[in-house]
Structure formats: C-alpha cells, structure tokens
C-alpha cells in the first residue's frame, strides 16, 4: 500500500472534430478542472502534460505548452508520452510527485487534435520504426488489428457480429446522455449492421473514430485536500503502468509479429490481464469490489476482451456477460457509463485522463442520468501501443 492521492478537480473539453489546436482544448479542460477544484492556476505546484505527436514540437513538450498558455508561474513541469497510455502515465507521474512530497497539488492535462480518418505514423522514411513498417510493408492500420482480434474471438469463443453490435448499442445510449461526448445519438443494432465494413468482421460503427478533445485533473495530497475542506475526496489508489512480460504472444499494435515462445514459456496471464492485475494488487481490491469500469473500447469486440482481462468473467465469457446485461447501466458491473470511445472517439493523450474524469463524477454521485447508484470503487483500463499498460483505480 503506497498511499492515496485526492482528485480535487476534473474537467474536459467536449470531444468532436472542432478544427482547432490541441492547446485550446487542453487549456479549456485545465481551467474546468481548476474551477472544479476551486483552485487558482497560481496555486498549482506542478503541471504534467500528456504529449501529442500531432501537435509537433509544442505537443512533444505538452506540459510546458499548457503552462505557457495558462501563464508561466514557475511550476514544476513534466511532459510524458506513452501513446494511448500517455494520460495514465501523466496521472502516475503526478501521483508519484505528490506521494514523494515533491508537490502538494498537481495539474494533469492531455489534449489532441486528431487527423481525419486513420492514424498514421510520423513522416519520412523510417524503416527502424515498427509503426512506420507496419504501414509501409503491410498497410496494417489500427482497425485491421481490431479486426484480427474480433475474428479470433468469433473463431475461439463463438462471439457474433450481433454481440459486437450490442456493445455499441449499450455505449451509444450512455454517450447520448454525456454532454462531453462527440456522438450523442443512440445507435441500434440494425444501424451497426448496415454500416460499411472497415476491417472484416468489424464495421464502421464497431470502431471508434479519431477525435479532438481534452481532459484534465487536479490531484493533491490528502493533507492538502483536507486543508481545503475536502474531507472525503475521490481518491486514486492505484495506477498500473506495467509492460508486457517476454514473450508477449498476442499480436500487439504496432508489431508485425509476436514474440516467439520457442525458448521461454509465456506467462499464464496475457498483457492486458496483467495491467488490471497490477492495479488490483496495488489497490488491494478485486473485480468483485468494483462499482463500475471504464475500458478502452477501440472496437466493440475489444470491450468484450476487457471484461475477461479485468476478471469480470472467465475467459471466453465476455459476450455472455454482455448478453446477461451485467455490464449495462443497471447491471452488476456497468462498463463505459461515459459512453466510451464509441461515443467519444480517440483523442490519444486525453482519453486515459477522461476515463478518470468519468470515475470522479460517478464516485462523487455527480453523473446525472448516467449515475451508477452507490458507486464506491471504479477502474479504468487502457493499453498504449509499444507495450504501455494503463489502469487506474479510484475509490470514494
């Protein structure tokens, strides 16, 4: 047990395709989180920015970029990049600083301005970059990996396209209730089935879009929170940022091949499961303690995979759990009450932070029509390419 940090403030910029720069989204989210915390920017001792590669140089040094936009005030500054896990590593950095006594109160910000269509690697001929190679040699976009996972589930576990569609139906119904979501329309299974195939067996409405967006958190020591009259804040109890263990035998973005298991037996636990396991271990809780989960539904099929990796059900039972309604808003363990990436789309450095924003609202009882009754413990789960784990456990 390494101690807890308080979530004093959470703020977001609505997701969408707004056509503006990532700094604008990040600053809006930061100001919203500061207002939510009842703090002035000058009171913040440290700022941690989650980087976006699409913002060019300012995006690579996101912490300083946001600090400059908010007004230089001499805070400690950090910038972190971990692909889709950037936001979780930003939270982890802030938490470590607080627990180490280096800062009392830290602002965490992530924002992105995404391109239309597929994500693509940075420019230039770079055959030493696995992300460049998979596009150049195979044309393997992110959705093709999601398609491989989905087809594999169908073959091994008997999942159906109808199961996948029901994930979208569930998440879009929640997104319709979330003012920060990009897509705020309920989607039917028929609409999923009628949408174009992108990467067989997945259709357009099975796959998350790319989006602009921003999210921010104000984290502090428990002492600082109490000093501000916040006796019972939402607390972060665990942040998992683990790597895979060799050999990683599930084909992961952006790799062209898995590690070989010819010389070393793979661990019993997959990488994704180990991400959750590390978070549970650190928090001293288990799947049965959860009130809700926010998971990384890059595709509808991938959400079902997370059910299993989080231990919400046994291997191969994800679709059954969904069909039983266990992950629905009124179910035993509601998943993606925010609407998920299905409703938000990807704004890479912001999304792991946005997941924690949703947990914060839920654990405070401020989620309105999306509220999970008596929410006490929540987990987020995410995975960044190049072997970045990401899960956060928050409690009230």
């Amino acid at each position, binding site marked *: 047990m390494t101690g807890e940090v308080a979530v004093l403030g959470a703020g977001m910029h609505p997701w969408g395709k707004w056509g503006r720069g990532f700094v604008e989204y990040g600053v809006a989210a930061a100001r919203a989180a500061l207002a939510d915390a009842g703090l002035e920017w000058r009171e913040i001792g440290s700022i941690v920015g989650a980087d976006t590669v699409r913002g060019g140089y300012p995006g690579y040094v996101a912490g300083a970029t946001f600090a400059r936009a908010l007004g230089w005030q001499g805070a400690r500054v950090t910038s972190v990049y971990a692909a889709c896990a950037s936001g979780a590593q930003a939270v982890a950095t802030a938490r470590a600083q607080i627990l180490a006594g280096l800062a009392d109160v830290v602002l965490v910000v992530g924002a992105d301005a995404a391109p239309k*269509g*597929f994500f*693509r*690697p940075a420019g230039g*001929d770079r*055959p030493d970059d696995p992300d*460049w*190679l*998979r*596009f*150049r*040699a*195979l*044309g*393997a*976009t992110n959705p*093709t990996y999601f*398609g*491989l*996972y*989905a*087809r*594999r589930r169908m*073959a*091994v576990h008997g999942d159906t396209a109808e199961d996948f569609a029901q994930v979208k139906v569930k998440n879009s119904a929640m997104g319709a209730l979330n003012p920060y979501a990009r897509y705020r329309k309920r989607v039917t299974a028929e609409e999923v089935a009628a949408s*174009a*195939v*992108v*990467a*067989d*067996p*997945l259709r357009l409405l099975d796959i998350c879009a790319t989006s602009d967006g921003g999210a921010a958190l104000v984290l502090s020591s428990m002492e600082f929170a109490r000093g501000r009259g916040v006796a019972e804040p939402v607390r972060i109890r665990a942040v998992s940022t683990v790597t895979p263990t*060799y*050999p990683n*035998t599930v*084909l992961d973005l952006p790799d*062209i*091949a*898995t*590690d*070989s*298991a*010819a*010389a*070393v037996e793979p661990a019993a636990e997959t990488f994704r499961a180990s991400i959750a396991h590390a978070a549970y271990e650190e928090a001293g809780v288990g799947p049965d303690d959860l009130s809700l989960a926010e998971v990384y539904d890059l595709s509808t099929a991938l959400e079902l995979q997370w059910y299993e990796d989080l231990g919400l059900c046994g291997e191969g039972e994800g679709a059954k759990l969904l069909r039983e309604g266990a992950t629905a808003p009124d179910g035993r363990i509601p998943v993606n009450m925010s609407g998920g990436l299905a409703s938000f789309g990807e704004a890479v450095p912001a999304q792991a932070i946005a997941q924690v924003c949703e947990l914060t609202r839920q654990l405070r009882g401020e989620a309105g029509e999306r509220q999970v009754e008596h929410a006490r413990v929540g987990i987020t789960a995410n995975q960044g390419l190049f072997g970045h784990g990401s899960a956060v456990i928050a409690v009230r």
Partner: protein
Amino acid sequence: MVAGWFAGEGDDFTLLGTRCSGCASVFFPREDSHCRNPGCGGGDLAEIPLSRRGRVWSYTDSRYRPPSPYVSDPELPWEPYTLIAVELAAERIVVLGQAIPGVTVADLTVGAEVEVVPGVLHEDGETVWTTWQWRPTGVTA
C-alpha cells in the same frame, strides 16, 4: 525498404529471422543487435529461415485505402486486400502478412494451413517492391 527479411524463390522462398545462440529465442522481424529475452545473458544472433507453412491465427481485410507510407495509386479505385496472422508451430510465433491477391476473407478460416510465397507490394517506374505473402495451401494461382 528493409533488407534480409526474406530470401529465395519459388519453393525455396522463406522468411528470415534470427536466433539467439544463448537462449534459442527466435526473432522476426530479425533482431540483430540484442536478444530481447530478459532471462538471457545475451548471445550471438544468427540468421535462420522460418517455417514455410503455418496455421491461420486470425485474418481481416482493409476495405478503405490505408494512409501513407503505404503506397497505392490514388487514381485507381481501392481494391481491398486481406491480412493474415499466421502461427508458425516450430517457432511458436505469429507473423502478420498480406494474402496473395485474390484471396478474400471468405476463403479463410482460423486454423487453416497457409504457406509463405513471394509477392509484389507495388511497382514504380524504377523498382518492383517485393514482399512476402500468405497463400492457402492447395491454392496454386
């Protein structure tokens, strides 16, 4: 665009990986600088041919034109291609590759046997860019 990932022609065509002399770990794409097994003290990495045949781990296709650096002619209508992830039993590795032209997802099942064959990624005025492709065994096209 990359050297030493495959070699040979016809029935002799193979993917090339490397194997660590210290722990016998296999790497594809080839790892020439360091063994990635954390339990290995490090050994020499020697080039080895990979098994020519394997079983389909999963498959999908690309119904929309991928962005650069994938090369395709924007003047021509997009022709989807199929991607197959193939499990090689001896090496205990899964290797992704394009299927030969004409093979669609309707032709595939998880667990079916495929073999590696030389193929053309694209051609420009000066160069024919060759690659590896997976072909269901029994298909001779």
